[in-house]
């Protein structure tokens, strides 16, 4: 029992730590962009998963074999556990290397193929290690079970087995959660999630949190946030023909508010462009042109040459956009 726990500690603690040490050296040598470090970090999780998964299969198989000698099982457990942990990590690194060489074509399948390939590899290793020591006897697979099926599961009740099955389940659930539930997440985003959590701790220790909260509350003009939300709403409403009028109302409100808070002109340009886009969909060419005329009017008395040029450019770009617009004749 003690030895078994020792080897499990070796698999679940020392192997990933070893991997992390490699990451450390890689990141601090010439991996300037941290590309290899990214992959190694991901591989740490993969190797844990492989180790846990192969362990489950191993114990399940051992408990299913009615004729094994207990001593042999203990010895083969050690060998298989150690080999699976070490070779699992090596296989992961080799596969990762090849998946990089394969390039973008297979990138979207990379996560899935890696998992499947590694699981197969781990299973094969454990079968070879175990049955090599037990004399390649596969005959039990063909025999009718001697004991009720649920007896075979009694190994689950042993505390050490229970612990690693819990770890394996956790890793398994996390793995599938990230892969399917948040299937849009890329490796970069996953790294971002990890770093983000780290930054949150660094940035907001208990004593600093209060300071940041109170400063931040005064740092942003609430009207700017309000303009943002009105524009976001207008963009959603603009998608539907039936809600175009509501979208126009929201943009008008945002524009009015922007004027009241002395919104810089370049930001007002974006609002004008959105308004023209909506009017275009509503087949209101005159109203759209009026928006451009407003900038022209502003430019009439402008003495600053740089400012004048800037507005002239905006007028040109908006007119260009208006040309592309296909107005439908009303009535």
């Amino acid at each position, binding site marked *: 029992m003690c030895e078994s726990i020792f080897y499990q500690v070796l698999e679940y603690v020392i192997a990933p730590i070893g991997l992390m040490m490699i990451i450390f050296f890689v990141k601090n040598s010439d991996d300037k962009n941290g590309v290899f470090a990214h992959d190694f970090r991901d591989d740490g999780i993969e190797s844990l998963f492989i180790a846990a998964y192969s362990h489950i299969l191993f114990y399940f198989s051992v408990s299913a074999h009615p004729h094994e000698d207990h001593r042999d099982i203990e010895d083969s457990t050690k060998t298989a556990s150690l080999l699976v942990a070490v070779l699992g990590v090596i296989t992961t690194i080799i596969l990762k290397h090849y998946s990089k060489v394969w390039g973008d074509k297979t990138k979207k399948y990379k996560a899935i193929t890696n998992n499947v390939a590694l699981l197969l590899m781990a299973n094969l290793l454990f079968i070879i290690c175990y049955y090599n020591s037990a004399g390649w006897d596969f005959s039990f697979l063909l025999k009718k079970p001697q004991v009720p099926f649920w007896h075979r599961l009694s190994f689950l009740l042993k505390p050490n087995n229970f612990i690693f099955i819990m770890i394996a389940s956790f890793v398994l659930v996390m793995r599938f959660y990230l892969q399917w539930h948040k299937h849009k997440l890329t490796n970069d985003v996953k790294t971002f999630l990890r770093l983000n959590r780290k930054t*949150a701790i660094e940035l907001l220790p208990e004593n600093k949190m209060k300071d940041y909260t109170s*400063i931040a*509350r005064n740092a942003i003009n609430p009207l700017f946030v309000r303009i943002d939300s009105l524009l976001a709403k207008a963009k959603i409403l603009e998608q539907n023909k039936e809600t175009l009028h509501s979208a126009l109302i929201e943009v008008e409100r945002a524009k009015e508010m922007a004027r009241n808070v002395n919104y810089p002109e370049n930001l007002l340009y974006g609002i004008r*462009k959105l308004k023209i886009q909506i009017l275009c969909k509503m087949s209101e060419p005159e109203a759209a042109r009026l928006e451009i005329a407003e900038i022209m009017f502003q430019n009439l008395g402008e003495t600053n040459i740089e400012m004048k040029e800037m507005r002239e*450019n*905006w007028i040109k770009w908006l007119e260009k956009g208006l040309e592309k617009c296909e107005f439908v004749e009303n009535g």
Partner: protein
Amino acid sequence: MSKTVILFIDEQQTEIEAHIDYLTATYGGRSFYYAQTSSKGLEYLGKHYQQIACISLDLLMPNFLLRTEDRERYALEGLYLLKVIREEYPSIPVVCYSFIKEEFANEFIKKYKAEYIYKGDRNSYRDLLKIFDKTLSK
């Protein structure tokens, strides 16, 4: 590989529309990439970091991790992102283009060697264009 792309990470496209149109008119439609969220920005960055000349980063973005409307947390999303970009891509220049007042984020922005331009400033448009012109013509 030459650096030919300006990456905008900003929740509100209307606020950077004038910059986008400037880049399109001056350098062509492929001279910029717009990402509405941090995750999309990072995804693009991961794939095309060799082509990116400069990043314009908004600090005021919805926090997809915390899923909260709290303004203070809302604000921190961009700061997290700045740290991530600096650690992963230290050579790419970053300009924080935001409505957050400088004092709030000053310490952080200085630490991570980014430039800061206040969106509410009348000259912000020209200041940002100058940086784009400088980085794209390198």
